[in-house]
């Protein structure tokens, strides 16, 4: 028996939520990305305080101090229709060796299931500050923002419950940056970030996929050859007795990262930018609780050394690496009214091969089966590197008003083999509109509306039939910012 807890992370897709005052800019793009950080006017060639994230070198081009404060709301619509393509035994039976006798196969557990929907709504926010301490030479900045976030709230009894039921994961950066303006053409910048993460999630843990459980059954004293483990086929999965509700709560991560940037202005009209964001090792440390309140686990096999408490609680660590990324941008001012810019990001999501979850509790230990009090489980993700391209057109109808439009694309990080509702990912199309009203020389009001969605993604090659089905994702974000210059 096994106490391996396989916790999947709700990463990607849905929407990023706010951490209150530090409101993230939320929602989420491919992989783990929040859809926007800063404003709709921000980017690697933009000269505002959000350059702390986008390209710290651009801070060197700031002539005045700037405070950028923003908030908003994110609304998501994530839909999943699971399609069972494998054979499944009747959930209330317990046949542990594949292939299972046909008499136990549940004919009803086949094909498309009821669609599940998550509609998260979350506040957002961020804050950036920059100030030229040496005019035309050195600019310092600080910012608090949320570049990665996800929130999900699916039905607890839906067909996705073994993937995720509820999740809330954010990673926020508190960054200090400095930029040096070398000359009129070149600026260099760098930032160091304290990365604070917070995570909570819940799901049904399928013990059929836990290697220690399979090993415990196959090793003495029970000694029963079985098909359980990470490679368990569908006909031994999702059994009621082995589907145990688990939650990870109040998990907090502390880590650090950095970014460096280069800004080049070959001409007054052409701006180029390059930014490298380093990866971040996240270790969310919190408490887990798992409902083992089934007589199979609490009583019936006690004489064989299998006896859990009805509720097992303990410490848990969720570990994964936020990816490094390289972003190149370019902007061109056509005339006083028109400007175009855009960027290309290459994000090394292949850094994320799995999510490692380590749970520790004396109540997990089942010495008779050789299982200790600490278990580490890897959830394979095998993500791919992604690209993110965006193009913006900006139009200034009056001196005080700036309007912008955005089109973009993000490629999917999740391959068909591992995609599930923890990362309802796909190739995304991005669109957005924004505007800046320059109230006076010091105060600007910025408004943005941004949308992104994936075309319905139908997956048929999910490993072990874990995530086959159709995924739909749509995220809308509205945000407003105040921009003070002094």
């Amino acid at each position, binding site marked *: 028996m096994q106490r391996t807890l396989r916790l999947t992370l709700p990463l990607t897709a849905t929407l990023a939520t706010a951490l209150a005052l530090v409101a993230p800019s939320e929602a989420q793009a491919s992989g783990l990305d929040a859809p926007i950080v800063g404003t709709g006017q921000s980017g690697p060639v933009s000269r505002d305080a959000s350059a702390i994230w986008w390209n710290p070198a651009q801070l060197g081009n700031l002539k005045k101090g700037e405070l950028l404060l923003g908030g908003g709301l994110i609304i998501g619509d994530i839909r999943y229709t699971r399609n069972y393509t494998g054979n499944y035994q009747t*959930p209330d039976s317990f046949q542990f060796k594949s292939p299972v006798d046909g008499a136990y196969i549940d004919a009803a557990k086949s094909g498309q299931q009821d669609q599940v929907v998550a509609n998260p709504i979350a506040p957002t926010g961020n804050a950036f500050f920059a100030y030229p301490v040496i005019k035309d030479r050195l600019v310092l900045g600080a910012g608090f923002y949320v570049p990665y976030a996800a929130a999900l709230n699916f039905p607890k009894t839906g067909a996705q419950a073994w993937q995720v039921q509820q999740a809330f994961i954010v990673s926020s950066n508190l960054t200090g940056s400095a930029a040096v303006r070398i000359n009129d053409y070149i600026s260099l910048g760098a930032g160091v970030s304290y990365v604070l993460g917070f995570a909570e999630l819940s799901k049904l843990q399928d013990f059929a996929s836990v290697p220690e459980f399979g090993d415990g059954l196959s090793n003495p004293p029970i000694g029963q050859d079985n098909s359980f483990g990470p490679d368990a086929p569908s006909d031994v999965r999702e059994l009621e007795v082995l589907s145990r509700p688990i939650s990870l709560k109040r998990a907090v991560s502390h880590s650090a990262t950095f970014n460096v940037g280069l800004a080049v202005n070959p001409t007054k009209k052409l701006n180029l930018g390059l930014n490298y964001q380093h990866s971040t090792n996240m270790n969310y440390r919190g408490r887990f609780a798992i409902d083992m309140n089934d007589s199979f686990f609490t009583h019936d096999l006690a004489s064989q050394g299998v006896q859990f408490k009805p509720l097992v609680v303990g410490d848990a660590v969720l570990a994964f690496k936020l990816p490094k990324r390289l972003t190149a941008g370019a902007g061109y001012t056509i005339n006083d009214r028109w400007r175009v810019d855009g960027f290309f990001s290459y994000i090394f999501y292949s850094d994320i091969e799995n999510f490692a979850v380590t749970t520790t509790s004396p109540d997990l230990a089942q010495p008779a089966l050789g299982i200790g009090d600490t278990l580490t489980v890897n959830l394979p993700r095998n993500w791919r590197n992604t690209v993110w391209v965006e193009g913006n057109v900006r139009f200034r109808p009056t001196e005080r008003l700036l309007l912008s439009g955005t089109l973009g694309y993000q490629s999917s990080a999740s391959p068909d083999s591992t995609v599930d509702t923890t990362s309802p990912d796909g190739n995304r199309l991005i669109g957005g509109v924004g505007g800046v009203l320059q109230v006076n020389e010091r105060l600007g009001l910025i408004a943005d509306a941004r949308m992104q969605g994936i075309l319905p993604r139908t997956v048929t090659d999910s490993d072990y039939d874990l995530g086959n089905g159709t995924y739909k994702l749509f995220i809308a974000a509205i945000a407003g910012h105040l921009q003070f210059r002094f």
Partner: protein
Amino acid sequence: MIAPRPLLLAVLLACPLGQAGCIVDEVTVPDPPPASELAPGETSTVELRFLRFEVDGFQQVMTIDDVRALPKKTLDELWLLDYSLGETLDTVLAQLRDMSPTEADALPQAAKNMRNLLKMTPDNASLVGTKLEEAIALAGTVAIPPAKVLAALAQVGVTDNLVPPDVISEVVLDLLVSSHPTAQKRKGPVDADHPEGLYPVAEGSIPMTLGDLASNFESLADRFGPAPLDPDDPMSPIHPGFIDKAYGISIVEETFEMAVKVSVNALPYKGVDLGDLSVASVNSIASQVDTLFDFDDPEWLKVEGLAEEMVIQELTMSIRENDKFVTGGDARDPKPEGNSEIWDLPPWEFEHLIMEGARRAAASIAEHCDEYRLATDALAFQACIDGEGWTEMTTFADIGAPPPPAYFWDILVEVAQVRLHDGGLAEGDADVQFTLRDVRIPIDPDAILVEIKKNFEADPSALAAVAERVNDAAEGDADFYFYQPQLSNEAALQGDYLYFVTADDIRKDDEAEPVRPYDYAKPGFFADAELTDKVSSPALIDGDDTHEKIKVSAGDVLYMEDDAGRRFKLAVGEKPSPSRIKLDITRL
């Protein structure tokens, strides 16, 4: 881990804004509702699940410590084999006979005398005080050593035992050991052939249980000490027993392991305790005894660590003598033993043992006459024994009076009785008791294992009881339980069944005793509230024909009574899932 204060504050502030940070519910397990007795007319709904965890060739390994942890009742009821005491007695008596003079000096007088009897040969036999004394003395008159006369009569060498050791062992086994009630019957399962649950023990053997192995035979003295021949009769004669003390008798090593393979549904059955409507677990092992073991698998039972010799650290044996001097017989009739009162004594008494030993020794003496002549060649003395052991000594030439004719054993028993009281022991004080230490007796572990396996195969129920104990998953006190037949059964037999518990289903306590009596006045399921129309039967399903059982489906209504005499109505509801059943239970 506690979130740092700023972050925690942030999350708390976020919650009212939009549930962010609050959307993940913590997993909790509510306390179960308190179980309570139904009031008359009250209804409660119970859901039961039948789960199969079919383990195949599941090997249950028990070390000697595991075995010792079993309840004494379980250990004592697991009969392994009837262990023949032949070699053991041979060794024990040989050790007594051959012990050094120094050791022998430490023996009680009666034991010394017993030892001398075991060693008695024509050469060392002291006939003083016996009828033979004068007769043998006649030999002196013809210049023949008396030892030769006695040896010739018994047809043994002058230094051979008058009664061979193997004959003594055999007699002790046959009369002393085999007459003990514990060596005659052992407990076993009650069945049609053994309605009292008693089984015969092989002659000359003692029943060996797992408890003996586990406890180093510590109960031997209790079991083979004084015991009434008929435990149910308070006036029954008492067998004095033959083991006064036994300590450190072992035939297993500390590496002992007993591994048994079972194929079984390892999960208990789920039932209902009608007393409080709680879901209870019924141990499922006993009901699967017929299919529990695969005797075709040569490794279905493995025992390792059986020693190649029995080690006896200390053993005190005793043989009681009759309180009076009982003489040998003096007449041929009744044949074939003669008229000695000794034959009427209990078989375990010393006199009877010696008498029988001598009789058996005489069986090997051929009919013959030994003649002894004077120097003048005149016949002076003749000793004859016929084919029935009748011995006659005749003197001629007036050299003295011979003893009256008698059977050989009548003569020898007198010698033995007299010698047993050497050293001034009064009649009745010569109960023989001797203690032996550090005796090692070779045994054949393979033969023992073969015997054990053969016995288990003939009756696996006792071993199943151990398996049941080791896999004890009973909880609560179910009155009935839910069962689904194996899929290998014909379709008509498939379905949901309710089984009324039997006495075997009663949960056992730490001492393997039932926690409650089986007090059901009307076991089974009925169609009417008066319990006059029984609708259940002990039909054979999956090898079980002991439980009252009935197939049920949604809409069925049954009536039953629990062990407290409360009556209930069971209404079968719609099935929640294929392996579940829902019952609305109303107390009447």
